[in-house]
């Protein structure tokens, strides 16, 4: 975008006004961000240590670490991804390669996915509780939680994969078709590999959204802070742990801040990977076309 910067000098008052607004908005955002992150670092940093990450919580989470909670969180995310990724990519492939632009199928599916993306996470939680925990009999378990999150991240995955596929140059589609390749072959050998960075970025976004989730998990994966021994076990996710320590456990604040710091670092890591992938994807598109 730097090459778009306008170099022409201008002293008009309105231009100055715009600069003022933009700079102060930027300043406000940076200040708020520093304040929040600073608060978490100040309160959480001293508790943070290797042993915090590797020991079990004790005394209702006031002391001890978060090892089983990290494991549960990762397992929940793993299930969510394993389930959502194939369905999401398949749906996106269907929408972008097997339906027409402006066709009714694509419009209706896209609209319903947009709605799904906007459904509040707590509704997903209640749905997951009723459908996975009770109706399918999975109970409060990592499996239920993972499946619920899979439903939640599905629209995000589909949306980004679809965007990725649609920015693959049409020449490759035509080329593949002219060689007598089926759409399936074109998808597996050319289109999906070319859209991989976009899919990965969507995946990271989805994971980020899922890892930060509290409301959907309280009712599905539950509350147990023991090291899970199978996917049928209830397992407490990091965000649920923070919520419980903050709202329900006297003297839990220090560990809540430390856990929040861990979660923020985790999410920031995931997000930067997503951003990097998106950027690389953007530049790749330029070199390819």
């Amino acid at each position, binding site marked *: *975008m730097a090459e778009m910067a*306008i170099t022409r000098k*201008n002293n008009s008052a*309105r*231009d100055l006004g715009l600069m003022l*607004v*933009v*700079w102060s*908005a*930027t300043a406000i955002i940076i200040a708020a*961000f520093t304040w*929040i992150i600073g*608060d*978490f670092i100040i309160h959480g940093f001293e508790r943070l240590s290797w042993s915090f990450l590797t020991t079990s919580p004790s005394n209702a989470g006031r002391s001890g670490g978060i090892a089983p909670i990290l494991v549960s969180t990762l397992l929940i995310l793993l299930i969510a991804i394993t389930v959502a990724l*194939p369905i*999401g990519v*398949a*749906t996106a*492939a*269907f*929408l*972008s390669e*097997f339906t027409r632009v402006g066709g009714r199928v694509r419009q209706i*599916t896209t*609209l319903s996915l*947009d*709605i799904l993306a*906007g*459904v*509040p996470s*707590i*509704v997903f939680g209640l*749905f997951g509780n009723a*459908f996975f925990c009770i109706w399918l009999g999975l109970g409060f378990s990592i499996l239920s939680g993972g499946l619920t999150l899979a*439903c939640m991240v599905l629209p995000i995955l*589909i949306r980004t994969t*679809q*965007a990725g596929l649609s*920015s693959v140059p049409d020449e490759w589609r035509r080329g593949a078709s002219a060689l007598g390749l*089926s*759409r*399936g*072959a074109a998808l*597996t050998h050319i289109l999906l590999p070319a859209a991989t960075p976009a899919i990965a970025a969507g995946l990271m976004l989805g994971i*980020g959204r899922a890892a*930060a*989730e*509290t*409301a959907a998990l309280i009712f599905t994966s539950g509350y147990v802070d023991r090291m899970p021994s199978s996917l049928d076990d209830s397992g407490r996710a990091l*965000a649920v742990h*923070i919520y419980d320590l903050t709202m329900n456990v006297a003297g839990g604040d220090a560990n809540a*801040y430390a856990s*929040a710091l861990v*979660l*923020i670092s985790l*999410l*920031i890591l*995931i997000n*930067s990977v997503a*951003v990097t992938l998106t950027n690389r994807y953007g530049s790749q598109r330029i070199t390819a076309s």
Partner: protein
Amino acid sequence: MISSKSSFSFLWRNDKILGRVLWASACLSTALLILIAMFLVKESWPVLTSIGITRFITDAGWYPLEKLFGLAPMLGATVIVSTLAVLIAAPLGIASAIFCSFIAPRRIAQAYRSLIALLAGIPSVAYGLWGLTVLVPLIGQFQPPGASLLAASLILSLMILPTIALTTDAAISTVPKSYLQGATALGLTREATIIKVILPAARASIGAGILLAAARALGETMAVLMVAGNVVQFPTSLFDPMRTLTANMALEMAYATGDHRASLFVSGLMLTAIVMALATLAWRLSGGRVHG
């Protein structure tokens, strides 16, 4: 000619089978929405039939244990708090995108962009925790109790700001460079170019991004629950506490049975209906082409 009926590739050669498989997963994805809607209706059915939908709007208050089921104040509060959050976040987000695209030197813009991405990475419980321990007492010093519409709007606006900033940034970057060259060639000032040419050209995508953010604000649960005060009432000032539909569900669901529980599902149903309306609006706005 190569035999085309090799057993290895026959599945792929037959696009019909692949098409069916992909179609089935697309159906699954679409069915999910229907499943969720059906489930919400099923769970709220007992009160919808025995009490009727009108009482959820007309009842004087929300005391389900005393058979009062007025959701209207929460519906109002949900809309008000989301609107306020968007009103706060949209100018900030658009300004920050302008900063990124036109004002900041390349390096600073890049650093700033990753900062915004980091802001997007803060989980909602963390915002809630910060709001509860820092923001609410701060507001409370001036205007007790502190937990209020203002606190909730501020926290929500912080949460949706990255979404608006990032989508606006992306929208601006898709405006053809020729517009900019044209405007500069006409001798327009930077301010006029941005306000009169670039933003209007990116209007549709920016709008879609804002609606996306609005949906996020409507659906946010935990952070709002922690800072909004949760009193069921129409907020009449910025400092009034209020309760949103999502907070209502989260606060009471675990403790609710019978009609109380079913009426909480009505909250969910209403919320989903609002989101549905919003999504349809966004879809209309962008002419059915929200995403590629």
